[in-house]
């Protein structure tokens, strides 16, 4: 079945579109909304957004492929995005990335076989004063330590199991 925004999200889309002088301008926020529902921005989502905003699918696809936050492939239940830019690296982020890789048995860019964790190395998250930092499903975790990361992983595993 073709993708479609449902329920309250459909109304939110209408409200978003109304905030701009033309419909096409709402492309970014509408893609965010679709990803919130679908988990990814795939070909079906692109087709839906093109139809909804009255623009060619190629126009939506070029936007979807430009910005790193639009996920073109599904991620695990927990998406770990660890910053290794300079301020975080000076605060130990290179080691943290190794700890995460070891604990999960994956490299950045991969998902664990049980589908629980995806590890991504990302650029500056604008929280350098509390480095090192990581996003877990979009939520910022600050002042990380190796022990803290291990505790966080086991907490997430417990949450997923329970």
């Amino acid at each position, binding site marked *: 079945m073709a993708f479609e925004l449902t329920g309250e999200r459909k109304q939110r889309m209408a409200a978003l579109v109304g*905030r*701009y*002088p*033309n419909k*096409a*301008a*709402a*492309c*970014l*926020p509408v*893609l*965010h909304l679709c990803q919130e529902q679908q988990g990814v921005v795939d070909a079906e989502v692109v087709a839906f957004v093109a139809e909804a*905003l009255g623009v060619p699918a190629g*126009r939506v696809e*070029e*936007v979807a492929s*430009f*910005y*790193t*936050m*639009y996920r073109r492939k599904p991620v695990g239940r927990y998406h770990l995005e660890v910053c*290794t*830019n*300079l*301020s975080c*690296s*000076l*605060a*130990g982020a*290179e*080691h943290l990335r190794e700890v995460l890789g070891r604990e999960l048995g994956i490299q950045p860019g991969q998902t664990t076989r049980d589908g629980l964790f995806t590890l991504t190395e990302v*650029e*500056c*998250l*604008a*929280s*350098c*004063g*509390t*480095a090192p930092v990581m*996003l877990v499903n*979009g*939520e*910022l975790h600050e002042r990380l*330590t*190796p022990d803290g990361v291990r505790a966080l992983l086991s907490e997430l595993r417990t949450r997923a199991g329970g």
Partner: protein
Amino acid sequence: MAEVERLVTRNFEVPDAFRLSVYEQRGGYRAARKAALSMQPAEIVAEVKAANLRGRGGAGFPAGVKWGFLPAGKEPRYLVVNADEGEPGTFKDRALIERDPHQLIEGCIIASFALGVHHCYIYLRGELERAYRVLQAAIGEARAKGYLGARPFARGHELEITVHRGAGAYICGEETALLESLEGKRGEPRLKPPFPATVGAFGASTIVNNVETICALPHIVERGGAWFAGLGVEGDGGTRVFCLSGQVQRPGLYELPVGTPLRALIFEHGGGPREGRSVKGVIPGGSSTPVLGAEQLDAPLSCDGIRAAGSMIGSGAVIVMDDTACMVRAAWRLARFYHHESYGQCTPCREGTGWLERVLGRIEDGLGRETDLELLDSIASNMLGTTICPLGDAAAMPVQGFLRRFRGEFEAHVLQGKCPFGARFELPPGWKA
């Protein structure tokens, strides 16, 4: 340490300052009311000019002068607030929004009165989800109170604010890329001219200002441009929020008068480097600004002061590296970032950023050649000034800065065939490898 009056961060420790009621108890919205009831647009612009408020986003252009570029009589016109905070080392806009969103809204109201704007867009970096929620809630409160909408503060000047979320692209911090992205397109910078004041968002006249620049406006309107100017140095007024990170004891945000010496920020406020360490290099204004050495710590933190020291104050992001830090590794880490963020519109940047990352990487890995230092300099020189937007410059300048200031470390890597500092930056105290 002298007691310093804080302006834009004055509510940071106040509980629930994100609520409209608390913000008003702290004197909030007085300036917007004053502007609405008793000031003509030209009077507001005159105060901002008198304040010597330099843009806080990176370029340091005088905000009042920028406002003066809006052509008269052309409607509609837009105010776009650049909250696409992404320059590595910078973390002030996130805090300004999360901890005191009404200050930003009040600044937008004042700027909109001054500029004749009826719709203001805040372009917020996509990753800042919490800031988005906080700001949306605050805008809702302000609208419910009648501070936004048909007649803000009973002035017949309709005003709406829309928060536009980005989606992950450093380049969108560049103002014309940001405008493209606001229009729902790929964030590819435009050729200038025309400048945004003439042709900006949706083909209309547009002013783009940084979050911190807008947050200064309530204070300028309430206490006067001359007072604000007097807090800083000649031609560069007020206080600034400095983002201190890296190898210091107390990283964080410090709002200090423009012109405060770099040394005071790092040592008096930030506690200096860790026990037994010394400062080796300092990036004074975010990842794109050339590194300074320990002998330059007396430079005043102002646009002109840091320029005289051979760098730029940029977004006020100060990254400290101590004597254990490898300067080649630092340069490589930043080059990697710019390679990732170069989006390929111009050849010198698309190709050059990749070359910089690869050559720096092999030097750091001990595989560098004697000719590599000249090669790096030549790649960087070929990028400077040859691209549509400043990303190419932003990638080239720090590499040249590291080479100029720490050439000996690069040579040592090549001669010894390894990194003299080891395979990564030193672990924080108490961490075990």
